[in-house]
């Protein structure tokens, strides 16, 4: 008798931002958040991660007039770099992708996939990007965008001991990194652009035109009106036509040279 053990390493797509999943026989929505505009989904069973490797996802353009939170998918957009900083994030998993780790100029102390077992300082880029979609005649800017996957797209061989100061403290490293990031964005723009997904939600501000009643508790909210500004949030950025690994390797910033 001959026993052959075949060891197969399977790489599965985590349920990180941008991943697809299904809910079978979903329950009827019974509860809503945000004044009835945001449905809450409850399921007694589990969700299933699915792949869409054979399909090109269709576009879902943003709807600025929407009163509720609205997700969008755009393909073939141009992205240009407006500003770039480097920070440390404390994201230990692969679930949240380190999104929204630098909000209102404050670095988050922990991420949604934080756990005490696996925590290490990771270098992450804080990017300000300008997105141009010529098909939909749309332009918007995204500020303070953090993403672990996008950082790992721009930087290869990030040493575990590297911190943000390793890069920011050396003008040569910082200059090389920003040049590489701009070249990689130009590579995508010149070819088929980028596929992005994200969300918008028109916020509300306190109505300054009326006399607000005194608030007794934190649940008492002043009268609100729709905010004039609309902030775009990106959750996934990827090449529309991914270049080969060899080309990527030529363009990526080699973070192994930091140490």
């Amino acid at each position, binding site marked *: *008798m001959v*026993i*052959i053990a*075949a*060891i*197969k*390493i*399977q790489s*599965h797509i*985590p*349920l*990180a*931002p*941008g991943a*697809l999943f*299904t*809910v*079978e*026989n*979903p*329950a*009827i*929505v*019974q*509860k*809503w958040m945000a004044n009835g505009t945001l*449905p*809450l989904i*409850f*399921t007694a*069973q*589990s*969700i299933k991660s*699915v792949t*869409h*490797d*054979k*399909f*090109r*996802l269709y*576009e*879902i353009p943003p709807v600025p007039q*929407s009163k509720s939170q609205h*997700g969008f998918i755009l393909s073939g957009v141009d992205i240009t770099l407006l500003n770039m900083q480097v920070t440390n994030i404390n994201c230990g*998993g692969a679930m949240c992708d380190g999104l*929204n780790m630098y909000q209102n100029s404050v670095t988050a102390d922990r991420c949604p*996939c*934080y*756990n005490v077992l696996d925590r290490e300082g990771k270098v992450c880029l804080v990017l300000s990007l300008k997105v141009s979609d010529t098909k939909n005649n749309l332009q918007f800017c995204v500020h303070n965008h953090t993403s672990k996957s996008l950082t790992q797209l721009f930087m290869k061989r990030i040493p575990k001991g590297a911190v943000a100061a390793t890069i920011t403290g050396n003008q040569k490293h910082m200059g090389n990194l920003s040049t590489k990031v701009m070249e990689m964005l*130009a*590579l995508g723009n*010149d*070819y088929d652009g980028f*596929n992005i*997904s994200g*969300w918008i939600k028109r916020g509300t501000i306190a109505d300054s035109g009326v006399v607000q009643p005194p608030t007794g508790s934190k649940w008492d909210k002043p009268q609100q009106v729709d905010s004039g500004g609309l902030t775009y949030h990106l959750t996934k950025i*990827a090449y529309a036509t*991914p270049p*080969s690994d060899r*080309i990527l390797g030529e363009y990526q910033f080699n973070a192994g040279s930091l140490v």
Partner: protein
Amino acid sequence: MAELSNENSPSTVSPTSTSTEPTVSESIPSREDASREDGKRKPNIGNLPEDSKRMKSVQYVTQPSSEKNESIIGENFDDNNTGSITDNNEVFHKNTSVNNVDSGSESSSNSSGFTRREGPRPSELFINDGSRQCYNVNWSYINLAQLQSTEDVCVVNKVILFQVLYYVLAKQDSKVEYTNRSGKTSHATFERMLFAMDLHARKGMNVCVFLLGKKQNAEIYSSCLDQRDTSTFGKNYIHVSWLLSLQSKSNHIYR
């Protein structure tokens, strides 16, 4: 997305319909053809390796007249034909009649603003469990608008397709204020919130929330390869499959 490539055929092309199969032709654009209709220029071709210069174009063969009628039926369901799905509008769907038979509450699907997009069918989605399992052709999509419309929606053999947007970690005193169908307001606690986008939802209202915490969607990750929101979440795993092959003298061929 990064995992997509040009050599993939559009989602709605039936593999059994030979007349509608796209003919993929490879062409290497010359330097003179570097400019494109949308104004984008090709990368500096001289600096790139040869494999990066290849562009693939997908062309569709004109449908036969008998199939065109069914194609028109399929397009009628997409009453929000905004043109964003340009590649798929002229493609015949082999299983359109099966998958578009929705429940009785589907009358709302014909209301204005309802988005019946021609994305991948449930039977064309691969469940990410290491196998190549797909949904049965009897399964069809349901969307958020239908789940919210009334309480008598039939959800048997229905599946809803989401894309993960982002997660939110609760602070110590974070609570969610929600209203139910009767209009009563209450509060719920959570540990994390998963914001997801329904890919077939009504235009302008396609985001929903999963509250994750004790007793709330507790089993949500249990079938996703045990990828709970721990350190193991999202990491590769090693699947060991034992292949037994019995070899004995009796299996030998005697002549």
